[in-house]
């Protein structure tokens, strides 16, 4: 299969869905070439359908919502997901609720694409992972792809749906390559996890960038005879609990990893759900790994301490697996 970057996979999804749906539009700041260059080259292909906006995120998302309710699909691009804090009303009080509040009258084919998480030194207001806010809210879907194929397939599915979707793109993954099926029919259903690596001893559930850290750790752990199963939920709302539960039934041990701070995170949700619904499958405590409960510092020496790393995964998994099974 051809290998393309996450950036190109997203660009392809946008391009193909623009071709498929003549009513589709995209709005945002510096929309050409778009945040992290995702739209490069698309402007000329679709004249009048990439709308350059003022720095007015509340109006961007609100207008995108109104357009989606009456037409669509619509992509609203928000340059850094931290900026979603200025348009939470439009997302949570409006987009998430309009279908329910109107007794099912509204359809909302709206996708909010936004880069998330870690980058170099940009500190507390440009590095957060706030997906838990949205996963907390009924009416929203939340995607966090970790591979080019998933990025493309999930975005296309999101654009063909009628629910508002938060589509989070990990900044450090844009340049990562991976195999992506040819053709315009590659879809990935929201709410379906992917077992990124099979294993026997510990189920490691990880999202976004943390999937690659878990896979890195897996290789290292294999050397000392520990086999971990890496499950990537791909969407954090809904969460594919069946796949997670099935894996825990097999391994009897769970570690959940998130780049976000742990308190009230998606990792806590998964850990709590397993402890509630698969208590009897567990051989030991559920474990969680997330960022320390601090804003992100700028300086590199502290920054690396403010995110979970592969070393943390190795340490925790080794604590989890009793020596006899190694």
């Amino acid at each position, binding site marked *: 299969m051809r290998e393309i970057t996450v950036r190109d996979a997203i660009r392809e999804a946008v391009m193909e869905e623009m071709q498929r749906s003549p009513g589709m539009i995209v709005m945002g700041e510096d929309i050409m070439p778009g945040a992290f260059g995702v739209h490069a080259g698309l402007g000329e292909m679709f004249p009048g359908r990439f709308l350059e906006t003022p720095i007015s995120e509340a109006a961007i998302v*609100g207008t995108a919502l109104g357009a989606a309710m009456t037409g669509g699909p619509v992509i609203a691009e928000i340059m850094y997901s931290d900026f979603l804090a200025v348009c939470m009303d439009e997302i949570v009080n409006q987009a998430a609720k309009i279908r329910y509040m109107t007794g099912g009258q509204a359809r909302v084919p709206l996708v909010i694409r936004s880069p998330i998480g870690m980058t170099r030194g940009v500190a507390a207001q440009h590095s957060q992972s706030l997906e838990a806010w949205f996963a907390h809210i009924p009416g929203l879907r939340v995607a966090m792809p970790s591979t080019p194929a998933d990025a493309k397939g999930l975005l296309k599915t999101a654009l063909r749906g009628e629910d508002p979707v938060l589509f989070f793109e990990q900044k450090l993954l844009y340049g990562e390559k991976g195999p992506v099926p040819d053709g315009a029919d590659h879809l990935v259903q929201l709410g379906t996890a992917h077992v990124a690596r099979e294993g026997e001893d510990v189920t490691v559930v990880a999202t976004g960038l943390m999937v690659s850290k878990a896979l890195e750790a897996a290789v290292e752990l294999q050397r000392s005879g520990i086999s971990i199963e890496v499950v990537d939920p791909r969407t954090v709302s809904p969460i594919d609990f069946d796949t997670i539960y099935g894996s825990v039934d097999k391994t009897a041990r769970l570690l959940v990893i998130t780049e976000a701070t742990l308190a009230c995170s998606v990792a806590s949700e998964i850990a709590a759900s397993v402890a509630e619904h698969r208590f009897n499958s567990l051989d030991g405590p559920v474990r969680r790994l997330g960022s320390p409960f601090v804003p992100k510092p700028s300086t590199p020496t502290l920054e690396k301490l403010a995110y979970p790393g592969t070393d943390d995964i190795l340490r925790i998994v080794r604590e989890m697996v009793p020596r006899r099974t190694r």
Partner: protein
Amino acid sequence: MSNDLPKETLVGFWRDMHRIRAFERSAAYQSTLGKIYGALHSYEGQEACAVGVCAALQAGDYVASTHRGHGHSLAKGARMDRMMAELFGREDGYCRGKGGSLHIADFGCGMLGANGIVGAGYAIAAGAALTAKQSGSGRVAVCFFGDGAVTRGTFHEVMNMASLWKLPLLMVCENNGYAQYVSTTETMVFRSVADLAANYAVPGVHVDGNDIRGVFQATVAAVARARAGEGPTLLELRTERFNGHSSGDPQFYRSKAEVQELRRSRDPILRLEGELAGAGLLDDRDAILAAVEAEVTAAVAFADAAPYPAAEAVTQDVYA
């Protein structure tokens, strides 16, 4: 009176304002009977705004409304019985009882929803206008909002964007002088909302919101401009809120006399009625009133008879 508009139009205005007022009074009464569960924000006093504006619209045009939205819905074409059923929380209400007064919507007639968040409607209306523009449907979108809502920053964000994109949008401020219990002269340093339009290279028009002819004519002009691709217009309709902010408001902040005087001198229905009667145009008066009364009675009966939604409805309509 000036013979500006045909008799049927004027009499229609009068009837439609009456429908709203009768609906509001009936709803208020039903609320005292305990049949309506949530709070109500009465539109009494502002009827000429909704009716005058919506009379200038087509069925396919869009309206985004506010917490004080009953008048907008009725004027845009919503059925009184399904509205009453919504207030009663019944399955046959427009929103299956899930929205209630604060969220009534009838997408079928272009009414995109009342809204519980002040200042959230601007962008939704602008988005509907954007769809109209991109698709070339020729539709326009109207955003109703109160004077208090102008201090939300979203007003300015949308004014700028809508003007840049020349969206077919009418921004209609119903300036009733109050935001909840506070006179907006205490919270807005500017005295004219319409004048804010100038910043955005958009016409800003002052209208007496209780003069339905003026409201209608200003809207006709704004709609024509919007359909011609010339962009948005900001209309400021000066009007009055005859009741408290919501059903529970004892109005300690203004005197009974003040309200009585408003009801006497600033009633948009009485005003048109006087003009029509003076010109001998109200020969159908009693028949119309009887028909409105019958409609309201039927609406209450409909709502009373409608079932509450079944338990499983609670988890429906969250996702497609």
